[in-house]
């Protein structure tokens, strides 16, 4: 029997989260692999947004529209998705692995009795079984897991694993359908929000980022890097140890537990390139790195590299850039 795949979109104020498009790409791929159809589920969002999603090659766009869903709360989201999943029993439900899905998807999986494979990077068919691939131990290992038993399978998708441009457009737009909703309970009243970068910058919108790592050695050593960022018109991001040590504020953290960025140029300085960091920046158009260790994993995803002591190289680079200005 043809399998049904649902792809849950994440949006805010009428704009799709970048990873929603990646999820569409993944859903189309999964549908082709298992033999089935993929539909998008749009929670709130207006007609224009529904039309935008319907422009992708999909069976349908299911829209859950209710005032209770306009602002995210886990209660209302679990209520809306839970009753629809229980009623229609899709075979697979895909979610982007975001801060929002981390908050409500485990609960949803329990309520509908679905298995949940988190942060997958790919899937393949072995016999008639789907095998999900996900990195473990910070990417030092790759695991391949299968799900036991029958029933709906949930998977969340790692940022950057399924390129947006592989999502196929529709020849004729997908049908937009309203989803039946029961009573929804918004279970959080948000008292205040702070947008990252309100005060200074929004790293997700930066064209150029200078990424600062533990190799920099201390907050007093940031001067040349700030100068470099200024010369390039770049914003400064950082790896987690830099945040944990208090050298830079938390909104600068890039990686699996920080922000996900995709600038045109990412210059990694004194960053080893642990998988948790890579997850947050490997979508950059071009990565270049400065590191004293030529076997550092960051060079594995860089286009250009400079091997040596950053305390010597960065000031020299500043001087060279100043000269060419």
């Amino acid at each position, binding site marked *: 029997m043809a399998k049904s795949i649902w792809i849950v979109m994440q949006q805010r104020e009428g704009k799709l989260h970048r990873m929603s498009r990646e999820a569409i790409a993944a859903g189309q791929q999964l549908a082709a692999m298992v033999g089935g159809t993929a539909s998008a589920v749009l929670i709130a969002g207006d007609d224009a947004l529904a039309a935008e999603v319907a422009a992708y090659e999909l069976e349908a766009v299911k829209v859950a529209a209710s005032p209770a869903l306009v602002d995210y709360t886990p209660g209302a989201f679990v209520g809306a998705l839970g009753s629809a999943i229980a009623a229609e029993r899709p075979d697979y439900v895909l979610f982007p692995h975001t801060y929002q899905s981390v908050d409500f998807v485990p609960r949803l999986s329990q309520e509908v009795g679905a298995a949940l494979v988190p942060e997958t990077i790919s899937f393949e068919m072995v016999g008639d079984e789907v095998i999900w691939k996900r990195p473990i131990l910070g990417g030092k290992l790759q695991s391949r897991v299968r799900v036991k038993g029958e029933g709906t399978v949930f998977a969340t998708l790692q940022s950057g694993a399924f390129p947006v441009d592989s999502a196929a457009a529709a020849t004729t737009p997908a049908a937009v359908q309203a989803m039946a909703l029961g009573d929804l309970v918004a279970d959080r009243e948000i008292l205040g929000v702070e947008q990252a970068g309100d005060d200074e910058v929004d790293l997700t919108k930066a064209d150029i980022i200078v990424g600062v790592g533990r190799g920099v050695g201390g907050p007093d050593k940031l001067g040349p890097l700030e100068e470099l960022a200024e010369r390039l018109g770049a914003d400064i991001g950082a790896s987690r140890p830099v945040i944990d040590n208090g050298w830079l504020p938390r909104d600068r953290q890039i990686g699996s537990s920080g922000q996900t960025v995709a600038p045109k140029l990412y210059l990694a300085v004194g960053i080893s390139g642990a998988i948790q960091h890579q997850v947050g920046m490997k979508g950059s158009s071009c990565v270049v*790195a400065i590191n004293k260790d030529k076997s550092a994993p960051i060079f594995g995803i860089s286009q250009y590299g400079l091997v040596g002591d950053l305390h010597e190289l960065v000031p020299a680079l500043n001087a060279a850039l100043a000269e060419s200005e």
Partner: protein
Amino acid sequence: MNILVCLKQILDPDIPARDFRIDPERREAVRGSADLVTNIFCENALETALQLRSTSGGTITVLSHGSEDTEDVLRKALAMKADEAALVLDQDAERADPLQAARVLAAAIRKLGSFDVIMVGRESGDWGIGQTGGLLAEELGLPFIALVEQLEVDERGLRIQRQTDTGTEIFEVTPPVVISITNSENNLPRIPKTRDVMKSYRKPLTTLSLADLSLEDPSLSPAAGSYYRLAEISIPEKEIRCELVEGDNLEQRIDAFARRVADIADTTR
């Protein structure tokens, strides 16, 4: 506030990839000379709890599901000044998937008492699944809030600051709740004093077995797993396609590198 913090022991995630071995038969990472450490986000949770207790009073109980080795994690937490510690001893703990772990922790929590706030780390540094908190909340029938970076007691209960995809949001909740803690500049774990580490070994530690929690049924045992089966683990292959910029001297290398960087930077303007 009565606070319970769940702590997981993991293989040190900082060991370099080249020192890493796997046992394909057992589908496990080989420990070798690697250290076992407390998962960093669990330590962020404990630090958050210690700060909450210092402003609002109450007690902190730490709980782990692990083997004999896991006692170290709890002793360290006691040295950081947690009040009580409990270990659910289970040789298969390492192989538990999040649902199994959540069931064990939930049963232990019910046995240990009643708590206003139950804290977990946002994810572990080994399997990185990040579901235990959410599943634990479901097992206990409590609300779950992921990715909390700060919380304080106020007249309505707890004021929570949580990270979102675009920044942070603030709201109030009425305990009891389960929350997962993420790292922030405010919850860098304190380093216990040597004297307190020594003293921690004289503090009582409650040990529970799966039988004590009525979880000895093999189908409920972590070794049985709930919904995953691991098909294989492998060491990923790395391809290096990076051009390391060369030159006869530093100046040449810097110039060549600066030109490339400036060229790419120019395309963004």
